[in-house]
């Protein structure tokens, strides 16, 4: 821990019902080893009680505090201020993209959660079922044991970072497709029509931004690529299957 304090300007996106979106600046002194969420909370606690934002656990388990920090999606409870700005600089905090803004930094995640349920992805697994999954055929068994969808905290950073998600409200998005991959077409063939569609996995254009911002190392892009292989395999089989 460094004892030296930094003077920064927290530039926060503000938008209440009926208001146009705008930024408000809050100069403050911070310990650079504090987290971005600590600075946002300080604004709420000492400067403006009307600031609205989502947070809960403060240790990257709940996935509530996902925001855009200096134009990059971050889980603010585990993002040290030192990593995203410098002494005397501005730190811009915005809500996630591709989700409707409810107020200030809080976004409506309802549709996203519903879609996760549609593909059978469960937010919480019993310990007995949270075993290391069977590695997909295209993955190296040694490395895949550390990449579990059970680690997904449904923070929505991947949806926000995905450029394809910016232009389609119906696109399932990286986390949902990753959930479908985790289920697997072998286990749940009903997912085939859902994912093999215009707004399913073929709308992904391989930008890999989802994997780049994922705070839980779930690697959604890799799962989408694996799901594509599953779909191709299933469609190929059906070509030779008797009706």
């Amino acid at each position, binding site marked *: 821990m460094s004892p030296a304090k930094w003077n920064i300007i927290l530039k926060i996106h503000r*938008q209440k019902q009926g208001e146009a979106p705008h930024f408000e600046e809050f100069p403050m002194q911070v310990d650079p080893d504090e987290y971005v969420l600590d600075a946002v909370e300080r604004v709420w606690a000492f400067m403006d009680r009307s600031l609205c934002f989502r947070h809960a656990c403060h240790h990257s388990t709940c996935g509530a505090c996902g925001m855009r920090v200096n134009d*990059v999606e971050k889980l603010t409870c585990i993002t040290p201020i030192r990593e995203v700005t410098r002494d005397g600089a501005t730190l811009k905090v915005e809500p996630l*993209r591709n*989700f409707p803004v*409810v107020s200030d930094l809080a976004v409506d995640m309802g549709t996203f959660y519903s879609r996760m349920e549609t593909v059978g992805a469960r937010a919480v697994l019993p310990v007995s079922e949270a075993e290391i999954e069977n590695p997909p055929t295209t993955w190296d068994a040694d490395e895949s044991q550390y990449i579990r969808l059970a680690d997904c905290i449904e923070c929505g950073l991947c949806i926000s970072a995905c450029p394809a998600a*910016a232009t389609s409200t119906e696109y399932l998005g990286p986390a949902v497709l990753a959930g479908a991959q985790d289920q697997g077409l072998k286990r749940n063939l009903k997912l085939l029509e859902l994912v093999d569609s215009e707004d399913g996995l073929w709308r992904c*254009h*391989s930008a890999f*931004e989802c994997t780049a911002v994922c705070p839980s190392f779930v690697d959604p892009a890799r799962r989408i690529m694996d799901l594509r*292989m599953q779909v191709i395999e299933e469609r190929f089989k059906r070509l030779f299957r008797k009706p």
Partner: protein
Amino acid sequence: MEKQRNHPSPLKFWLWFNPIGRQAGGWAYILHRITALGLTFYLYLHLIVLGLLAKGPDGYDQFLVLAHSPLFVFGELLVVAAGILHGLNGMRIALTTLGVSVTRQKQLFFGLMAIAAIAILVFGIRMFTV
């Protein structure tokens, strides 16, 4: 109505080209979109030029004079560059879709772009010197 401001929309297609905060895969995505649009634009331009043939030999000869100007040759080089960049980046997408180099897509992208840079340079030298 405020909820719509941050909502996905086809009208926000310009966000595809926003490079701020993007990483290697995002840069590849932007490059792929720009080159695709460029090649589509060229296709229509090409059809218009071919249409000059219908105007007889004189009209086409006039176009050939224009086609040898340095500015036109530079335009052709841009078409060649777009084709190379789009083709090689397309290979990255096809390979990763088939499960090849998924965890090394960044290195794959930079490697293919290095090949593209060399190829564009070779084409450029030949087009302006031969």
